[in-house]
Every structure is written in structure tokens, then in C-alpha cells.
């Protein structure tokens, strides 16, 4: 047979990031898929080892902006795991609140993008319209729409002002009713259903073999959810269900995400209630991190985020490993994309909700030469600070 190969990427409107697949096709049927990553590789693990833990939290937030609190949460879990640090109850609720709000916005984002990818821009616009209030809630809580900077080792950095809680709850109710409307519209759409049902099936066995996590695996019938199996923060104290569906196709992934959004709303409501009555401090200001190693994880909207840190007693890790959910979910394409038309393959690629940003963080190299890296603006500003300092010292 003649081999036709189609490259997808690195800049392809399918995803907002640079990614690169080569699809071998027969007509329009994908017979083989090859993945090439590294376009987003910025060396987070390496940078993190140059920064203090507190800085690292901000750094890992910038691993990826979509679920930008998952990585900080997993990192603080890991650091806390080194030294068995406890956090105050209020902090636990705030963490959970932020985490779940983020799940809502992230799932809505995916829902919208999925609509966009199959040319259904109306879904995109609607989903994103109601994602906006979630971002506003973030702005009320943390001051930022994204990259909230809320996590700290031992607690959180900002409190939820009690006066705002009722407003937030009201907002949430609004979102819920609107979401119910969208969910209904999406679920009842026969064209959408016929377009997505049975497309890009990831079997349970394949999900296990590829170690898939998060919605990708839950849609294939694997009931794994870090929030339940390793409840940190307030997850042990709130009531919620883990949604599991069986078919593993794109449609199930869609439904699963929609249902999960409602669970998240439930959790957020509980957190808000608890926050209204609880008055403990929000930060356990720890003094130092002992040498040791720790594992932290968190159920990001896309699945388990895994952080491993090893410390030597300074305020920096000596090894910081990040494993993002997409890192294990993306290879499942090899199982789910073969033998289906290009149009289906592309929506299947998107159904995993892959984010290459965090798939391609990574690694440190040991360098004894301290060769200075060259930078521009930052360097200039640092030099400026340095000269100020010298002047002050000189005085």
C-alpha cells in the first residue's frame, strides 16, 4: 500500500499549543500515528532546582496555565510530605475550593474547545461565556484570573474574605443553572451524539497498559481518582462522587467531564459553607524543610499530577520531578487513534485534553562550571539591583 503521511503541527489550530504528530493515512483512515514532543520543553525541573520552594510554587504554576493550581498543589503536597507538615483546616478548604473551581473552568474550557474542534463554535462560545464567571470568582478570591498564586507550603497565601462568600455562592448558583442548560443542550443534540459516539475508543485494558489517568481512564471504566484514594486537603471532609463511565469513546469523555463539573460545584458549595463558619489561620508558617524525599499528587482536571522532591536542608530542592497527566495520557493515542478517519482522530487527540506545556516541563542537568546564562531584561534589572546594592553598601 502506498504510504501517505500527514504532519500535524507543530503549529496546527487543533490545539493551542505546539504539538507534532505524523499521521500515516490510507485515504482518510489513520493507520499509524507517531508523536513527537519537546516543543514546549522549558526545563522546569531544572529551573526549579535553582529556585526556592516558594518561588518554585510560582514556577510550577507556570508549567501550564490551564489548570494552573494543580501543579502548585501537588508540589506543596510533596514538600509537606518530606517533613510531614500539617496545614490549618481553613487552608485545606481554601485549597480544595480553588482546586475545584479550577476543575470547573478547565472542563468548561475543554467542552468549548471540543466544540470548536468539531466546528461547533456555538458550543464553544456558550461554554466559554459561562466559564467567565468562574474566572471572575478567581479574581475575587485571589486577585488574578489565572495563575492565582494561592498555594504556600503549609497553607495558602490569601484568605477568602468572609464578606465575599455569599456573593461567591450566588455566583456559583448562577453558573450551575446555566451549566445545566448547556449540559442538556449538549447531551440532547443528536448530531453531536452521532458525531462523537463510538469515536476513538480507548479500551479499559489499553488504559491500564498506558497507565492513563484522570477522565481519560475514568471514561474507560477505571475508577481511579486521587481525591478519593489519597485524600489530602479537605477532600476527606467533603462529600462527592467519582464519576466512572465505561465506553472510553469521545462522547463518554465529554459526558464524564460535564458530570464531573457538577460534582465540583457540589464540592465548592460545601467548601464555601465551611469557610463561612471556620476561622482558623490560613498558613502554618514553617521554618525549614529537612533533608529527605517526598511525593505529592493531586487530581488535576486531566488526571493525576505527580511531583517528587528531594531536599538537602536548604530552601531549594535537589531534585524535583514533575509528571503531568497528559504525559501518560497522550501516548494512549497510539491505542485509540488507529483505524479511524482523520476527522475522528483529531477529535480523539483533543478528547484527552492534552496539554503539552506540562507534558514537556522537565529536567535538570548538573553543571559544575556555573557558566552564566545570558538573559536580557531580567539580567538588566538584576544588574541594576546589584548596582543599587553596591551603592548602598558603599555609603
Amino acid at each position: 500500500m502506498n504510504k501517505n503521511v500527514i504532519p500535524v503541527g507543530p503549529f496546527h489550530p487543533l490545539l493551542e499549543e505546539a504539538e507534532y504528530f505524523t499521521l500515516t493515512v490510507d485515504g482518510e483512515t489513520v493507520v499509524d500515528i507517531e508523536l513527537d514532543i519537546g516543543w514546549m520543553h522549558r526545563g522546569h525541573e531544572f529551573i526549579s532546582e535553582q529556585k526556592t520552594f516558594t518561588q518554585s510554587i510560582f514556577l510550577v504554576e507556570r508549567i501550564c496555565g490551564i489548570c494552573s493550581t494543580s501543579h502548585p498543589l501537588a508540589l506543596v503536597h510533596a514538600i509537606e510530605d518530606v517533613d510531614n507538615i500539617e496545614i490549618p483546616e481553613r487552608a485545606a478548604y481554601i485549597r480544595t475550593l480553588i482546586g475545584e473551581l479550577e476543575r470547573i473552568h478547565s472542563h468548561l474550557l475543554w467542552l468549548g474547545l471540543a466544540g470548536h474542534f468539531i466546528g461547533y463554535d456555538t458550543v464553544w462560545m456558550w461554554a466559554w461565556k459561562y466559564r467567565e464567571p468562574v474566572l471572575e470568582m478567581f479574581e475575587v478570591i485571589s486577585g488574578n484570573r489565572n495563575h492565582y498564586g494561592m498555594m504556600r507550603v503549609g497553607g495558602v497565601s490569601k484568605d477568602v474574605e468572609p464578606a465575599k462568600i455569599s456573593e461567591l455562592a450566588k455566583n456559583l448558583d448562577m453558573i450551575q443553572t446555566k451549566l445545566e442548560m448547556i449540559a442538556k443542550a449538549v447531551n440532547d443534540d443528536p448530531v453531536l451524539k452521532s458525531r462523537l459516539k463510538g469515536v476513538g475508543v480507548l479500551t479499559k485494558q489499553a488504559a491500564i497498559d498506558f497507565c492513563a489517568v484522570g477522565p481519560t481512564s475514568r471514561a474507560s471504566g477505571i475508577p481511579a481518582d486521587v481525591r478519593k484514594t489519597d485524600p489530602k486537603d479537605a477532600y476527606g471532609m467533603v462529600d462527592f462522587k467519582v464519576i466512572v463511565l465505561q465506553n472510553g469513546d469521545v462522547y463518554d469523555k465529554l459526558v464524564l467531564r460535564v458530570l464531573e463539573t457538577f460534582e465540583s460545584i457540589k464540592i465548592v458549595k460545601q467548601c464555601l459553607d465551611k469557610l463561612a463558619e471556620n476561622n482558623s489561620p490560613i498558613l502554618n508558617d514553617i521554618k525549614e524543610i529537612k533533608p529527605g524525599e517526598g511525593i505529592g499528587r493531586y487530581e488535576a482536571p486531566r488526571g493525576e499530577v505527580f511531583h517528587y522532591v528531594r531536599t538537602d536542608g536548604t530552601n531549594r530542592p535537589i531534585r524535583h520531578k514533575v509528571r503531568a497527566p497528559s504525559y501518560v495520557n497522550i501516548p494512549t493515542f497510539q491505542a485509540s487513534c488507529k483505524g479511524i478517519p482523520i476527522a475522528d482522530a483529531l477529535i480523539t487527540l483533543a478528547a484527552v485534553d492534552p496539554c503539552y506545556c506540562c507534558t514537556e516541563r522537565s529536567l535538570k542537568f548538573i553543571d559544575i562550571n556555573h557558566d552564566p546564562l545570558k538573559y536580557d531584561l531580567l539580567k538588566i534589572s538584576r544588574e541594576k539591583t546589584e548596582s543599587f546594592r553596591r551603592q548602598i553598601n558603599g555609603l
Partner: protein
Amino acid sequence: MGWYNKRLAKSIWVFHMSASPCNNCDIEILDLLTPKYDIERLGIKLVGSVRHADVILLSGVINQKVAPRVKKIYEQAAKPCFVVGVGTCPSGGCCFNDSYNIVEKREDVIPIDMYIPGCPPKPEAMIEGVAKLIGVLNG
């Protein structure tokens, strides 16, 4: 070409190029298209092929692997084509300056005409940036 520039200013088709960002800028760029911000009312449209683009929205510190591609894509764009660096990443490298894998001088890879700082910049900031660009085009 004042007349032409005015047309250009009223019809800016943007191509969105993510060169190792954290994705947040990209999401916020997309956010611009959605109901709350709706930059289509300024005649701005997102296009999929760089051949159609008038403005390339570049986000992210450019890493070594993606740099040649970024350069290539810029060369493949139909001129006139402006490059707007969205976010702190293209303007200052954000927190990635210590990385071994990013290019040292982004301007060597792609001539950036305008920066919109912020991490990520608020959509309002981006709109303002775009408005400034339009202002420049209008002369």
C-alpha cells in the same frame, strides 16, 4: 498607504503561535474571541494558516526546538505581518530565564513589534495592545 493601513487596522487576522508558553496566554487569547470580550467587533479574526495572518500573536519563551519553526513560520507569513509578543514570556522570559533550553535572544528568532506584558496579560490589556497597534496603523 494611509488608506490601506486603515483597512488593515479594521481587519486584523491573527495567527496564534505558541512557542513554549504555559498555555495561559493562549487561553486568554482565545478568551478574547468569546462573548465577554468579543474582539470580532474590532474586525479581528483568528485564522489557522499563517498565510492569512496579519498579526502573529506570539506567546511563550521560545525554546531551542521550536525556534527554527517559529522563524520559518514568520518567514512564511504574507507581509505585512506584525508580531505581538503576548505575556511576560516573550518580553522578559518570565521565570524561565534560568532554563537551558530557551533561546537567549528572542528577537533574533522573530522580530517582535510589540509586547503586551503580564502573566498572563488580562484580556483587557491585550485589547488595549491591539488598540494601540490599530492606532499606530491609523497613523
